[in-house]
C-alpha cells in the first residue's frame, strides 16, 4: 500500500508546514542513523585533541568550525543528534507505557482505582518537568545521560495518564464498549483491545509533539551540566560550553543551538500536522 | 400568476472530496406560496437537509459548487454575501431543528436567547425583550413563562424546549419557517403537540413552512403539498391527497408500503433488486 496515496497523507499534506516538518524530521533522523558514515571526522566524537586546529571558524574543511580542542563541530553536532533522539525515544518508551496503562485503569476499572491513580498523577503533574527532573537527578550521585533519561521519564508519564484517562472516560459509555461488556469480555480486553485502539490518533500526535519537548528539556538539563558528560557530544552541553566564548567564537554555540531549534521545530510541525489530520486535541 | 414566496430553480450542489466529486442535489425544482405548508420527504442521503442549508446561505466552503437559483420574493439568494444573509436569517426566514435542546446554547438562559432573537427585529432593552417573550409564551399556553425564561435549556423537558424553540422562531413573524426533522427526537404525543403548535402559529402570521422529514405520518398530518426526493432528485410532486391516495412514482410507493400498518397485516416483502429510483422519471400529479 503506497502510503503517499492514502487519504491520510492527502489530508496531512494540505498544510505545507506539516510537510516541511516531515522533511526536517526525516533528514535529521537519517543524519543521526548514518552518522558514522556521512560525517567527515567521526573520530572527533571520542577522546581526541588537535590543538593545531583549535577554534577555527567555519570553512570548507570544518563546515561548522572547530571547538576549543580542535574537534570538528559539524561531526559532533550530527552525533549530538543521536544522543538527543536516543533521549527522546528512550524517555517516551518508558513514560508512554506507564502513563497509558495507568490512564486506562484509572478511566475504566472503577471509582477507587480512579481516585488513587489520579491523585498520584495530579501530584506529579503539579511539579514542572524541569524541576522534577532536577530533583531526581540531584538525588542520584553523578549526573550522566542515563540518569537524565530516568528523571525526565518520571516527569513525563503523568501527561499520558491524563490524556488516556480523559479519552477512556469519554469512550466508556459508547455502544461498542457496552456491547463488549454484555458479551462477557474481560476488563483487560476492553481496556487494551477496545479502548486503546481508539486512543491511537491522540497518542501518536502527542508522542510526536513530545519528542520535540523531551529533546528541549534534555538539552536544557545538559546545558546545566547534567546530561551526557565529555567527551560525548551533547547539543545542550555544547551550547553551554561555548556560551562563555561568545561573541568571538560564535560558532561554538550557534550551530548546536540551531541544531536543537531545527529538530524541536521539526517535531512540532509534524505533531501539529498530525493534530489536524486526525482532528484531535491533546 | 402571482409571485411565489420561494422558488427553487434547477438547483445543483456538489462537494469535492478526496475520493472524487459527490453530487448531492441534481437540478431540483420546488416552490412555495405565501402561507403554504410544503413537505420535502426523503430518506438519509437524499439531500433534503442540505437544501435548507442552501436556503440559509450556510454552505460556503471552498469545495462546494452551487448552480441554479433560489428565488425568495423574486430575489436570487443563492450566492448572497453573509452580511445580506444576516438580515434575512432570523427575520424573514427562520429554522427549527431536530433536537431542540441541542439547538439552544447551553450556557445562556432562555431569556437571553430570546433577547438575541428579538434584537433581529429592532433594538430593544432586555426588559422589553423579557416582556415580549413572556407574551409570546403565554399565547402558546405555556404556564409560568417567567420561570421558563429564567431557566437554562437543560432544565426543560424535550417537549417544552421544542415549544420554546418554535415560539422563538415565530416571534419575529417570519415569511418562511424551515423545519428540519422537527419532531424526530420526541415521543409521538409531544411530536403531535409540536406540529399542532407550528400549525397554529404559522396560520396566524401566514408564514409558509417548508417541512423536511422522512416520516410520512408527519407529512400526512401537517403538509398541504409534498415533494418526494431520492438521492438528490425530486421524484414526485403533488398535493397531500394525491400523494397518499394515488402515489405515482415507484419510490413513493415503496416508502408507503414499507411503513408498518396499524391493521397488523404483517410486514411487506421486499424486492431484493429494486430499480434505481433516480432513473425513473418524475411523477407529477
Amino acid at each position, binding site marked *: 500500500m503506497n502510503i503517499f496515496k492514502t487519504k491520510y497523507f492527502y489530508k496531512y499534506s494540505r498544510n505545507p508546514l506539516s510537510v516541511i516538518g516531515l522533511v526536517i524530521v526525516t533528514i535529521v533522523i537519517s543524519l543521526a542513523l548514518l552518522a558514522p558514515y556521512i560525517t567527515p571526522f567521526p573520530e572527533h566524537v571520542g577522546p581526541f585533541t588537535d590543538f593545531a586546529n583549535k577554534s577555527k571558524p567555519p570553512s570548507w574543511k570544518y563546515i561548522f568550525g572547530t571547538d576549543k580542542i580542535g574537534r570538528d563541530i559539524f561531526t559532533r553536532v550530527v552525533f549530538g543528534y543521536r544522543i538527543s533522539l536516543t533521549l527522546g525515544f528512550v524517555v517516551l518508551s518508558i513514560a508512554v507505557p506507564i502513563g497509558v496503562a495507568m490512564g486506562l485503569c484509572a478511566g475504566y476499572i472503577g471509582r477507587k482505582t480512579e481516585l488513587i491513580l489520579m491523585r498520584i498523577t495530579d501530584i506529579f503533574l503539579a511539579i514542572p518537568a524541569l524541576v522534577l527532573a532536577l530533583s531526581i537527578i540531584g538525588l542520584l550521585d553523578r549526573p550522566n545521560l542515563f540518569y537524565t533519561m530516568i528523571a525526565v521519564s518520571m516527569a513525563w508519564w503523568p501527561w499520558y495518564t491524563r490524556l488516556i484517562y480523559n479519552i477512556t472516560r469519554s469512550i466508556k459509555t459508547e455502544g*461498542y464498549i457496552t456491547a463488549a461488556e454484555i458479551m462477557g469480555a474481560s476488563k483487560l480486553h476492553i481496556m487494551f483491545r477496545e479502548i486503546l485502539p481508539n486512543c491511537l490518533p491522540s497518542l501518536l500526535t502527542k508522542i510526536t509533539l513530545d519528542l520535540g519537548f523531551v529533546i528541549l528539556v534534555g538539552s536544557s538539563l545538559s546545558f546545566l551540566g547534567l546530561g551526557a558528560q565529555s567527551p560525548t557530544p551533547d547539543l545542550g552541553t555544547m551550547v553551554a560550553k561555548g556560551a562563555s566564548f561568545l561573541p568571538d567564537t560564535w560558532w561554538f554555540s550557534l550551530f548546536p543551538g540551531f541544531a536543537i531549534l531545527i529538530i524541536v521545530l521539526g517535531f512540532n510541525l509534524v505533531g501539529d500536522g498530525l493534530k489536524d489530520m486526525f482532528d484531535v486535541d491533546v | 400568476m402571482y409571485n411565489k414566496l420561494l422558488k427553487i430553480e434547477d438547483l445543483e450542489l456538489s462537494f469535492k472530496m478526496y475520493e472524487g466529486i459527490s453530487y448531492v442535489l441534481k437540478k431540483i425544482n420546488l416552490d412555495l406560496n405565501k402561507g403554504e405548508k410544503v413537505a420535502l420527504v426523503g430518506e438519509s442521503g437524499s439531500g433534503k437537509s442540505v437544501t435548507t442549508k442552501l436556503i440559509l446561505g450556510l454552505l460556503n466552503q471552498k469545495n462546494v459548487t452551487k448552480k441554479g437559483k433560489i428565488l425568495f420574493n423574486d430575489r436570487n439568494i443563492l450566492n448572497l454575501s453573509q452580511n445580506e444573509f444576516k438580515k434575512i436569517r432570523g427575520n424573514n426566514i427562520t429554522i427549527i431543528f431536530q433536537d431542540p435542546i441541542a439547538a439552544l446554547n447551553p450556557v445562556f438562559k432562555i431569556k437571553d436567547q430570546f433577547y438575541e432573537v428579538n434584537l433581529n427585529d429592532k433594538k430593544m432593552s432586555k426588559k422589553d425583550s423579557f416582556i415580549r417573550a413572556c407574551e409570546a409564551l403565554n399565547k402558546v399556553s405555556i404556564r409560568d413563562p417567567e420561570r421558563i425564561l429564567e431557566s437554562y435549556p437543560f432544565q426543560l423537558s424535550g417537549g417544552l424546549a421544542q415549544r420554546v424553540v418554535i415560539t422563538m422562531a415565530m416571534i419575529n413573524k417570519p415569511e418562511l419557517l424551515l423545519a428540519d426533522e422537527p419532531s424526530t427526537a420526541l415521543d409521538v404525543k409531544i411530536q403531535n403537540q409540536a406540529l399542532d403548535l407550528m400549525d397554529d402559529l404559522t396560520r396566524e402570521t401566514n408564514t409558509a413552512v417548508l417541512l423536511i422529514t422522512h416520516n410520512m405520518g408527519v407529512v400526512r*398530518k401537517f403538509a398541504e403539498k409534498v415533494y418526494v426526493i431520492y438521492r438528490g432528485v425530486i421524484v414526485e410532486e403533488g398535493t397531500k391527497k394525491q400523494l397518499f391516495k394515488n402515489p405515482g412514482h415507484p419510490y413513493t410507493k415503496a416508502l408507503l408500503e414499507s411503513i408498518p*400498518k*396499524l391493521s397488523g397485516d404483517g*410486514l411487506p416483502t421486499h424486492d431484493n433488486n429494486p430499480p434505481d429510483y433516480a432513473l425513473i422519471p418524475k411523477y407529477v400529479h
Partner: protein
Amino acid sequence: MIKISNISKKFFIKNTIVKALQDINLIIEEKDCFAIVGESGSGKTTLANIILGIYQQDNGDIWFEKNQLHRKRSLYQRKLIQYVQQNPMSTLNPKKTILNTISLPLKIHNVVNKNQITERVKTLLSYVGLEPEFMVRYPDTLSGGQKQRVAIARALAAEPRVLILDEPTSALDVIVQSKVLNLLLKLKKEFNLTYIFITHDLSVVRNIANKVIVMNKGKIEESGNTKNVFLNPQSQYTKELIKAIPTVLDEEDALKPK
C-alpha cells in the same frame, strides 16, 4: 422462560429520586416476540438494562428458566442473552474490522476453534445478507442499515436463546427499517429465538410482537396479546398512545380508539 418478579429501581439524579421502575412483574415465554413499549422516561430501557445485567435492581428477582440472574453472572448466562442496541452508529468499534468485531463473541464463548473463526464469521454475515467482503471493512464505510446487520450477526454469534433488541430500527430509514425487521423475523424463526423488543413505535409492535406491555413512568399500564391490546385497549394512556400514531392510510385511522 424469563420471569421478572417485583423488580424496582430508583435513581438519584441531582438531589431528586427518580423511580425508574416500580414493582414490575412479567413472564416471557419461549419463542415469544415480547414487546415493551413506552415513551421516554417510561422505564423500558432501565428494565432491559436490568435483564442484561448492566444495572442491579433494588428489589425483586429475575429468573431464567430454573436459575436466578444477578448482575454478576457467569459467562454461560451471558451467552444465552444477547443484545442489539439502539444506535447503530456507536455499536461497532470504529477501529476494528467487521471480522474482528464479530469474532469477539466467538472467542469469548469458545463457540468454534480458532481456525474456524473466519469461516463462521462468513456464515454469520450470510445470515444477515452481507457478502464476505464486508469482513475486512471498517464501520465508517458502512451505512446505518449495514451496521445494524453486523450488530445482529454479532449478537447471533454466541448462539443465544434470547435477543434483547432496544429500538433496533429507530435510527434507520423507513425502507431499510422494513428490511431489517423482516430479517429479524426470519432469523427468529430459523434459530428458534425469543425476542424482547423495546420500542416506542407502536406500528412496528402491531406487526411483529405477539405480546406487549405498555409502560408509563415506571409502571405497567397494560399488558396482554398484541391484538387484544390494540383492538381493545383498557387504559386511557394506551388509548392516547394509539391515537397519536402517525398513520398513513385512512383505513388505519378507522382502527384507532375513539
